[in-house]
């Protein structure tokens, strides 16, 4: 089953083409990676998929429904949830509140419901708290539940972001450089969490620069260079592929 489908997706800024005629298909299972040198358009592609940028040309379908042109929050509620490259933990809220705010379809977020259905709001809040508590335990963040997220370490903040994604009951998660800037122990922990999520039925699509991590966790990868898709296959095949090698190393030769 095709979960995510991009056709001829193109996006330019001013004179620069950031994403150039990219077409790809993602199946609904497994962990897929998106790699490429800096500036190849990976994060832009994520922004396009999740609705934060509008396409210049092309079409994006998720679970066979067109999502290109829709608002980011609509896409998120369809089950396609993302993280950001620079961690965006809500620093002035507690860790617990960070997760609570991620719970979808909260009746309590509608002002009328706060007054008309107080019992239901309270019940939902209680259930969300329980769920958040469990997620915090899985992520080893239970002890810092009431700390302001801004006071956590960088690695912990990344976990908070992941925790938020989990609260949102996603069907597919887009992770933008999940291992950037964190220590190897945390990377181990993260790998286990991601694997578990995948085995629970959540499709994972991630951008990464950490090649060993990609090789270990991804069954298939896409490689981008200068906005174009240049490779699709397994990580091992990628390592032997001339175009991929050229993209990563060719830069240095041309620059000299």
């Amino acid at each position, binding site marked *: 089953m095709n979960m995510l489908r991009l056709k001829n997706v193109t996006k330019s*800024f001013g004179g620069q083409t950031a994403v150039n005629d990219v077409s790809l298909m993602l199946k609904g299972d497994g962990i897929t990676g998106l790699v490429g040198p800096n500036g190849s358009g990976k994060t832009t592609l994520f*922004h396009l998929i999740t609705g*934060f940028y509008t396409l210049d040309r092309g079409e994006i379908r998720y679970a066979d429904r067109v999502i290109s042109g829709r608002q*980011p929050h609509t896409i998120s509620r369809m089950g396609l949830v993302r993280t950001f490259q620079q961690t965006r933990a809500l620093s002035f809220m507690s860790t617990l509140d960070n997760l609570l705010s991620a719970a979808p379809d909260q009746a309590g977020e509608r002002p009328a419901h706060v007054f008309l259905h107080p019992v239901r709001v309270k019940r939902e809040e209680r259930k969300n708290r329980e769920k958040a508590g469990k997620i915090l335990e899985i992520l080893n963040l239970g002890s810092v539940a009431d700390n302001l997220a801004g006071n956590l370490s960088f690695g912990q903040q990344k976990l908070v972001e992941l925790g938020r994604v989990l609260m949102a009951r996603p069907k597919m998660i887009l992770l933008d450089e999940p291992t950037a800037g964190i220590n190897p122990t945390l990377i181990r922990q993260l790998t286990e969490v991601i694997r578990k999520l995948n085995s629970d039925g959540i499709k994972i699509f991630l951008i990464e620069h950490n090649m060993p991590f990609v090789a270990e966790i991804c069954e298939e990868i896409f490689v981008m260079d200068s906005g174009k898709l240049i490779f699709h296959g397994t990580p091992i095949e990628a390592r032997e592929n001339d175009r991929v090698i050229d993209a990563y190393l060719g830069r240095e030769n041309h620059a000299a």
Partner: protein
Amino acid sequence: MIYYLQLGLNGIIAGSTYAMFAVGLTMVYGVFRFINFAHGELIAYGAYLTLLWSQPPFSLPLYLAILPALAITAAIGLAQDRWIFHPLRNSKPITLLIGSIGLSYFLRNGIRIIWGSDLMSYGLESTRGMRFAGLTVTTVQVLMVASAVFFLGLLYVILTRTLLGKSLRAVSDNPELAGVMGINMKKVRLTVWTLASVFAGFGGILLALDTNLEPTMGLTNLIKAFAAVLLGGAGNVWGALFGGLFIGIAENISVAFFSPGYKDFISFSVIILVLLFRPKGIFGILEGVR
């Protein structure tokens, strides 16, 4: 027909003054990325300080009184930066905006304390207008346009021929890159504030020559300056010039169609329409994320 031409001429005269206000405001926005609400008070202080120096105990003739007045106005502009805006440079834009609103209120009330709230004027004898081709214009008005043209021409030279001017444009274009390229940010800062203050102050003097002085003159003209800035594209100096002229002409021609009480509506409408339909302005170049 002559009637409309006269209105148009009046518009150009007013517009050249608005252009003086607008270029300073847009330069500050271009370099520092915030709207200085207190820019209007630079306009007012330029006018009022000239009045101060032209009266006892100094009693300078008007054209000499302008010099110390502009110097002090520039000092006020630099002080604004030194004590308020530079310390706040890393805060959220809202903090700067609120700070500049507070500053504007502070300075405006300062005018009331020093000079009182009544209408004042430079006391020049009203000159008879000269007539040519059926249009009327006074010598003062000719002087206004001429000096505005002179100053704006000077600005052109500064921005395109001097190193400092080019640095200013570079910073306005790309602040991060400019810092890396070794542009002296401190000099740029001082230059921007000095230019903005002098232009605003001189514009205020021109305005006061043609009309009069009152404490809210800064605020009223800030809105017009802001409309001009938005119309031409925030950060675009020549856009601001165009915007100023446009607002001046539009305001004066509108008198033929609407009640004069709604004259200010022109600037308001321009602001609203630009923000709604073309936030980058006519000449602006901004990119947008959703």
